[in-house]
């Protein structure tokens, strides 16, 4: 075979491997769409999206996904209430205050925090954080939204802090120097010059963190319970979309039944939510890059 033909074949093969990622996305959408379509032939879209009871595994089946969505949002909100302020403060400290020696120690430790398997965080939430909280909050039940939410916030914190720090470090030095020259303190410079200048980059980090919280599975599957209920009370057991998928996967639900299809319908909703958030985050990051390119 001539060298030129071989080169041509190799390039095609490499292209196929790169195109596999597009096929993966297509595969995800197709697999979810086919089963969701079958599901929606038996349950109307309106009932699925606006129903307030989710009991597909009981004799009296109801397919209102709202309790799962609200449960997901409740845990994610608690997680963000921890990760957002702490992550931003940590990022400001690392970017504006910390001497480089301190940063060299803290950044790898934060990376460890991000690399701990989520099942380990689940164990921590259930066997340590919940009993600890129960000493102060006697009404807290063994499974609840509060404890996994707090632990999830801890898990997401490194993501928020490292992406926000990257955004702040990308702000040109000249802006800071101008601010100091006008007599501003470091705090004033950080809060009134650097953070606003890096705003779209920081927002992109926050949105990516929300997407991570919404899709997080094991912490909530272990520590939040399996009771889909429409509540904003963080002290009682709830169920998230991801935890429901795990619950059904653990049982032996036969393929082709409506119970089996529910996990794909819930998965579709989860995919659309996180995909939308990811797109907004990517768009914001691009915008931020343009501002200082």
């Amino acid at each position, binding site marked *: 075979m001539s060298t030129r033909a071989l080169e041509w074949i190799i390039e095609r093969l490499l292209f196929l491997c790169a195109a596999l990622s597009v096929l993966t996305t297509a595969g995800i959408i197709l697999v979810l769409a086919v089963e969701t379509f079958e599901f929606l032939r038996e349950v109307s879209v309106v009932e699925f999206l606006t129903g307030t009871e989710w009991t597909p595994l009981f004799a009296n089946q109801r397919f209102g996904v709202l309790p799962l969505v609200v449960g997901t949002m409740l845990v994610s909100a608690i997680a963000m209430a921890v990760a957002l302020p702490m992550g931003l403060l940590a990022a400001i400290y690392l970017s504006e205050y910390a001497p480089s020696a301190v940063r060299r120690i803290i950044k790898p430790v934060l990376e460890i925090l991000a690399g701990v398997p989520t099942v380990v965080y689940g164990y921590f939430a259930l066997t340590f954080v919940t009993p600890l909280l129960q000493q102060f909050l006697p009404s807290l039940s063994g499974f609840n939204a509060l404890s996994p939410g707090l632990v999830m916030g801890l898990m997401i914190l490194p993501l928020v802090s490292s992406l926000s720090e990257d955004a702040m470090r990308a702000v040109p030095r000249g802006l800071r120097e101008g601010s100091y020259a006008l007599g501003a303190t470091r705090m*004033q410079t950080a809060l009134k010059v650097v953070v606003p200048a890096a705003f779209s980059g920081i927002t992109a980090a926050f949105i990516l963190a929300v997407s991570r919280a919404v899709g997080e599975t094991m912490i909530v599957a272990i520590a939040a319970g399996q009771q889909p209920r429409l509540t904003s009370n963080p002290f009682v057991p709830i169920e998230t979309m991801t935890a429901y998928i795990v619950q059904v996967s653990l049982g032996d639900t036969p393929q082709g039944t409506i119970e089996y299809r529910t996990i794909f319908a819930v998965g579709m909703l989860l995919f659309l939510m996180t*995909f939308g958030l990811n797109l907004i985050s990517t768009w914001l990051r691009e915008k931020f890059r343009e501002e200082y390119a």
Partner: protein
Amino acid sequence: MRKYGDLLFQIASMVTLVVALAALATLVYDIVSDGAGRLSLTFLTTFPSRKAEEAGVYHALMGTIWVIGLTAALALPIGVAAAIYLEEYGTRSRIARFIELNIANLAAVPSIIYGLLGLGLFVRLMGMGQSVMAGASTLALLALPVVILSTREALRTVPSSIREGSYALGATKWQTIWHQVLPMALPGVLTGLILALSRAIGETAPLITIGALTYIPFAPDSVWSKFTVLPIQVFNWVSRPQAEFHTNAAAAILVLLALLLSMNAVAIIVRDRYQRQERA
């Protein structure tokens, strides 16, 4: 007054970091104090049991090694090939740009969604069943974006003079990549692969979703065997009400963390040796 405000703010930021680090220390301390007493050679070499004190993790440890080994075998060649295409061939084309955007988006898709893909595609459509092969294929898809991104970075560090020198001697594009560029980028590629695998090794949700079993009294003997992995075993034990099983879960977590740490140590050694070679 403004000075005090600045100082307070700095203290608040530092306290935040200390709280985060203290939480990490508490987590490690909690798991070590719960599980260390249960660790023994017997724990590593026995099968699960209905009695907590007789149960071990041999099957799960073997399952993890099988699945991660196969994941590496699948993700490495495909990921490297994709990265070479994007970095060396198609950098300017519109298709390459589209693929890049797509990879960035895939990296942020929740892992449980990959599990649903694996269930629909590998387990059902391709008929792999709940085998090591189906699990590893799912995890390979999950690991691919990380492998591709890190390989691209490694390729970018190879100076263009190396490529030009090779072309000047009459080598074709692929000869240049295979004989010059890839060997130079290899340590960076391997570090990226190990980091991707150390994320995959802790994945639980996608494997539960494809139907990996939670109770299995044997270790896999081929890629078509049914399997379970360490994180699933941890989940199974922690979901039981009895405290003795929680102790088992903590001990299994320690085994998992030990695996993770040794993989990261390998990555650091590879990177370190590479940097020394660079300087020499």
